[in-house]
């Protein structure tokens, strides 16, 4: 309205059709930025997404958001119809599931912190596997001695578990209120004897 552009943006209804078409054609979630880049100049992608989401709210296919990415997905209540399309996925080990949960609830989290919580060293390949699944990724290095790398979850993680944002993790508020997501250091240094010799000492008590 205030900004005058050289080209007239398409009508709102048309913008919605375009976003609908692009998202329908893609199996992957697309970010607002990616959508904007593919639409004619001047389109209001967030408004189109809001309208579409509304339009599909109780349909068999729904517009879902994960992080900043959007995708059409079949409604979860119809999963019983989908057996034919379901691809059997590899069953995750308990270690991988727990590691994933710890990254999700404690992110950004260092390897040493994951080990501290599980009380056991993170086995080789667990982090590797979760990264390959594109559920966790490297975060910033922690600004503590040794500058350990941290891990965080990805948009694909949110998309896979149907979470809009990391704040929607189950029981997040309760766990936080109970202080169970605090980074509480152990009193004294008596337990240092337990450390894995490979572990970076500096990581231990950040």
């Amino acid at each position, binding site marked *: 309205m205030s900004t005058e552009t050289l080209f007239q943006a398409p009508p709102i209804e048309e913008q919605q059709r375009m976003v609908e078409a692009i998202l*329908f*054609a*893609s*199996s*992957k979630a697309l970010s607002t930025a990616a959508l904007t880049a593919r639409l004619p100049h001047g389109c209001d992608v967030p408004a189109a997404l809001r309208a579409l989401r509304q339009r599909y709210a109780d349909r068999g296919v729904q517009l*879902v958001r994960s992080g900043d990415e959007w*995708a*059409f*997905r*079949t*409604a*979860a209540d119809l*999963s019983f119809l*989908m057996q034919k*399309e*379901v*691809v059997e*996925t590899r069953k*995750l080990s*308990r*270690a991988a*599931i*727990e590691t*994933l*949960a*710890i990254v*999700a*609830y404690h992110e950004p989290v260092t390897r040493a912190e994951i080990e501290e*919580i*599980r*009380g*056991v060293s993170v086995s080789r390949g667990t982090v*590797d596997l979760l*990264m*390959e699944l594109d559920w966790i*990724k*490297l975060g910033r290095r922690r600004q503590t001695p040794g500058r350990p790398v941290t891990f965080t979850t990805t948009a694909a993680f949110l*998309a*896979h*578990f*149907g*979470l809009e944002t990391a704040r929607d*993790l*189950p*029981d997040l508020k309760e*766990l936080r209120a*109970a202080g*169970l997501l605090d980074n*509480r250091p*152990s*009193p*004294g240094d*008596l*337990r240092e*004897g*337990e450390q894995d010799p490979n572990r970076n000492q500096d990581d231990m008590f950040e």
Partner: protein
Amino acid sequence: MADEQLIRERDERLAAEALVIDVDGFEGPLDLLLTLSRTQKVDLRKISMVALADQYLRFVEAAKRLRIELAADYLVMAAWLAFLKSRLLLPADPAEDGPSGEELAAHLAYQLQRLEAMRKAAAKLMARDQLGRDFLARGLTEDVSMKRRVKYEASLVELMRAYAGVKTRDDFEPLHFKRDAIYTMEQALERMKGLIGTMLNWSDLEEYLPEAWRLDPKKRRSATASTFAASLELVKAGTLEIRQVESFGRIEFKRRG
């Protein structure tokens, strides 16, 4: 009374053995402690650490008796719990530094609660509707191929693997000079100095290569280079003359004067 005591101990021992036999099923001492703590059937916040320490120590005892080898961290935990128990039972020694038994016990209780909380959270996470299982992405994607554009793809994992690969090549193939195939210039110089008295006429450099260095091509190459370098050294010192009649021809030398 005494019988009851005996029976209870026996039961606990049997329970411990049942756990021991499944020791591979535990993911470390903290996991084991969490499992043991459930037998107390109280809220983790109200758990008796002394009782838990006893349970754990009995477990380790039973494992020893059954000759099951426990990983070192289980034994470290046992030692630590024994220490914790003594701190909790004995009156605090004001002269002693460090955290009190209660502080240590509180932290262990916190660790157990936190681990349990993460377990439950993980279970809830996995129980959620999942993409590809409960809700599905578009099955028939339309990527109309009109304009072909090659896009190169590489993931971070691949990038890191590549680097690890390159660096591993470095790590495990250190720059190794195969010393045994190197004839040093010092050796050559030493040998030439000893033979210089015999070099009255022009003679081929090759004749001065040591016997053992003539057959193997690598050794021969090294010996030739070093002998040649040594001869130049002697020319510079004025004790030898050197010539090569044509390009790539034989290199010959003789004693000067």
